[in-house]
């Protein structure tokens, strides 16, 4: 199968969060929102809620609070994921309510191990139709959907697991800095961020600040402007997650979320109060 190779139109546009989300996220899209326990673009997810996007296929290794909010407000039709919980606290109640009771609407699941979903992104970033890994065999995850198959090693004959490339319509990330040309710098735990960006048709990155010149830091990962579509400056945009060098994780907020999210009405009035009438990063 020949895939069309096309270059992106231009360098990243630096715009407001609202404009960036409006330009890159459409109803029915497959939307990866990444950041592995760090650099979670919470504010961007909340802007998607404000804009009332529907029918999304949400992708994330570790769905946590922001996905709970997006699921509870009915943005999502399907979830592709590896581990959906409130880290260090317990369940995601909106996720559970959707899966267990179909509220506010049923949620289709495509469930993977972290290693498996990771390699779906890796295959896509590498322009390959699939990736090979040692995984899934003997688990109930095998055979549950059509995104895990097997492949025989042409050298040893050994049977391995295969997962198909995952190409989101849009990947949303948070980073520490962008320069005025739209080149993006992130550091600390960067997870699957590079692969998720390179796998997607469109890339939106929220950043703590737009600077004249990116910092020179150990462990820095740079995404050049020409693989990014939109950059929005959203200081504190990861709250209650954190951004190394800029903010700390609000562990208490994760605990508060457990109480807020348990009850549908409490959840809805929290969303009304904290998300629907906000315009940028929400602290609570």
């Amino acid at each position, binding site marked *: 199968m020949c895939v069309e190779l096309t270059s992106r139109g231009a360098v990243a546009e630096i715009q407001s969060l609202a404009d960036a989300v409006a330009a890159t996220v459409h109803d029915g899209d497959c939307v990866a929102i990444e950041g*592995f*326990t*760090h650099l979670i673009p919470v504010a961007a997810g909340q802007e998607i809620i404000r804009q009332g996007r529907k029918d999304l296929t949400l992708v994330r*290794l*570790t769905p946590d609070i922001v996905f709970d909010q997006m699921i509870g407000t009915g943005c999502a039709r399907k979830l592709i*994921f*590896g*581990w*959906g*919980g409130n*880290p*260090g606290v317990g*369940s*995601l109640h909106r*996720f*559970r309510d959707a*899966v*267990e009771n179909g509220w506010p609407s049923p949620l289709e699941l495509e*469930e*993977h*191990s*972290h*290693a498996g979903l*990771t*390699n779906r*992104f*890796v295959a896509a970033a590498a322009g390959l139709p699939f990736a090979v*890994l*040692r*995984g*899934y*065999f*003997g*688990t*109930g*995850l095998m055979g*549950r959907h059509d995104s895990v198959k097997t492949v025989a090693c042409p050298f040893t004959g*050994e*049977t*391995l697991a295969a997962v198909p490339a995952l190409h989101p319509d849009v990947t949303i990330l948070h980073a520490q800095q962008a320069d005025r040309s739209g080149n993006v710098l992130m550091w*600390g*735990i*960067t*997870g*699957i961020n*590079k*692969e998720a960006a390179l796998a997607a048709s469109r890339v939106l990155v929220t950043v703590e600040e737009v600077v004249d010149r990116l910092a020179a830091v150990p*462990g820095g990962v740079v995404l050049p402007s020409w693989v990014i579509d939109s950059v929005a400056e959203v200081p504190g945009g990861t709250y209650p997650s*954190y951004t*190394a060098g800029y903010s*700390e*994780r*609000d*562990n*208490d907020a994760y*605990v508060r979320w457990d109480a807020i999210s348990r009850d549908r009405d409490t959840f809805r009035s929290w969303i009304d109060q904290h998300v629907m009438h906000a315009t940028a990063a929400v602290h609570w």
Partner: protein
Amino acid sequence: MTSLSTTGSDTSARTFDRDDMMIVAASRALVGRRVCFVGIGLPSTAANLARATYAPDLVLIYESGTVGAKPSRLPLSIGDGELAATADTVVSVPEIFNYWLQGGRIEVGFLGAAQMDRFANLNSTVIGDYDHPTVRLPGAGGAPEIAASCQEVIVLIRQSPRTFVERLDFRTTVGFGDGPGDRERLGLRGSGPTLVITDLGVLRPDPVTCELTLSALHPGVELDEARAATPWELAVAPDLARTDPPSEVELRALRALLATRGGSS
């Protein structure tokens, strides 16, 4: 939960509960090990207790990509900034899974679960039917590949008829599958769960049948209690041992470690 105290002492420093015993037993299992894949919660506490006591050079690897993390306080998530700041190196998630875990470089992995069966297979996905679950649990995360590729796995799980089950509602993670030879047939390269540490005692797989066998009881626990907590006919080692209670050094280190937990717990 009842509190116990180490022999002949009544100082509060020597009082411990069953979770303490579980963590201390797990930390002892890491003595002599070099590289450990750690999750948050009891495993992280145990691994850091080992670093603080008898295994100061233990290399901790967290799924978030932190290799050689040396946290001075207990992390609250596997992506805690403290882990990144103290690590020898922070690598990407693909690299952690593909090069470090799947590459066979990790000696010991720690796992927990909501349910475990007699062959140490684990469920962390659903209670009830997958498509209409009673309880939707978080899911697999890194567990299946940790169990597949670490040279050994240590399972930490509280022992009760709710967690020890005849039949898993979902098999998230393979221990010994359906029994002898199954790991090899499935292409799983590590040895699997060599040790299960519960709040009641320690179980090890029988070298022939792979079935978990009670090999030690923790202080204050009688065999009947372990049997009652196990819905199947619990195999018991002929030389059933008694776990040494936490020493004063261990308990002091554990208390100090728990006191570093920032924010809420």
